[in-house]
């Protein structure tokens, strides 16, 4: 694997990681807002 490919892999991986964290936060956050702040 070339360093360039490694860098590309890392970027795409981080993008997906952000999506995963965002989905988790959205699911919990939405229920928190619905139940405690609405």
């Amino acid at each position, binding site marked *: *694997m070339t360093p360039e*490919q490694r860098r*590309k*892999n890392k970027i*795409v*991986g981080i993008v*997906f*990681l952000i*999506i*995963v*964290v965002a*989905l*988790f936060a959205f*699911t*919990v956050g939405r*229920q928190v807002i619905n*139940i405690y702040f609405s």
Partner: protein
Amino acid sequence: MSSVTVDHVPGKAHDHSHDHGHAMPHGWRRWLFATNHKDIGTMYLIFSLTMLFEGGALALLLRTELFEPGLQFFQPELFNQFTTMHGLIMVFGAVMPAFVGFANWMIPLQIGASDMAFARMNNFSFWLLPVAAILLTASFFVPGGATAAGWTLYAPLTMQMGPGMDLAIFAIHIMGASSIMGAINIVVTILNMRAPGMTLMKMPMFCWTWLITAYLLIAVMPVLAAAITMVLTDRHFGTGFFNAAAGGDPVLYQHIFWFFGHPEVYIMILPAFGIVSAIVPAFARKQLFGYASMVYATASIAILSFIVWAHHMFTTGMPVTGQLYFMYATMLISIPTGVKVFNWVATMWRGSMTFETPMLFSVGFIFVFTIGGFTGLILSMAPIDIQVHDTYYVVAHFHYVLVAGSLFALFAGAYYWMPKWTGRMYDERLGKWHFWMSMISFNVTFFPMHFLGLAGMPRRYADYAAQFTDFHAIATVGAFWFGLSQLIFVWVIIKSYSGKGEPAPAKPWEAAEGLEWTVPSPAPFHTFETPPVVK
């Protein structure tokens, strides 16, 4: 695959026999610190087979109790623990890791990559699994035993469980993290590491189905993680997400769970479609009929899986308009699924078919999975579903999809690629015995459950009225027969791995297509260090 085959790969372009001894660790370090996709694939497969037997043993305990009416061996509380753990172990411990094992072994070989994109993360995502499995199994031995809330872990049952529930939540979190890491690895590998010339529409169907499955995993596993985190905070931190008395809503849990749960069903079946799509053309000696439509059908199934979750909840009292919407949306899924079944049959049509074990399991898959698909269509109709909800009809339906679907496809794939993994041909006679024993005993076990369900036998009950006795007795006999049949598979694997059997050529199936058949059997430790060129 759109007729891309290996013969387009120039001989010099791929590096298939350079087994670099300097880079191959030995002893326990090879496995504990494994970063090689083949080693990790093997570990996934061994782990999932072990879990299959653990989950299977629990199933046999359930069937033993259900052999005749009355309570013979287990109290209902323990029976419910067995039911729950059987489901959790089979879904998260057996079927999903088995497909990840196949992905690890085959995706780099099929796209001409040297390894997975994140080799160390691959190691971590595997080694999380035994930890989770130990937690889950150990939960039987904590006060109150394992969770008995069913694999769906519905609130408010989850609020009433002992510490076993917390262990299950922790285990599912760990397995979810493992799945997410595995999925990210697969997506990045497929998107970034394909050999030159291997365009997306030239990829084998197995890679396509896994690419789409990995997207599904990334989209829904965080939702499951969020749901069980909220269960955990409800249990221990005074929140009331799913507690009506605290302003929450137990039905909310079901919505969140099934937003994960329905795509999960496709996570467990799409890679199976990919395996069957590789095997049927190889043994029909024809190109896969309708490659592009197969890809679009897979994507359609995945997209539709996000908008049908509440068909699992028709009895929760949703408005009729809601029921209608979810009913029609669910029925839509039968269209792309029908496209797939049609394409497999059309591939076989006028083909020069032979029925070696992989093909037998694939044809068996098509036949029996279609029955499961049809009962799914029947269940999608709200008026019928309300009648048979939580009965054995549902149990029969999802076992037709998951056992005769996912598991049979896994067996098909194992026999198909075993020569590549072990370097030896498996014992064909034993393979055929395994197929016929499994096929017959599977139907003996699960077909009577349709009748039980239609007659009103509820699921997850340790006892039942005498009128259900005969069908339960037949199902129990079938279950033991099915369980024992799997020992043949273990024997086939042991024989193959211990070097018994004919040495396998690089391409043991004359009409098989794909880059994996260009490397020797067994596949060397390092493959495609120089990427092949696909034209």
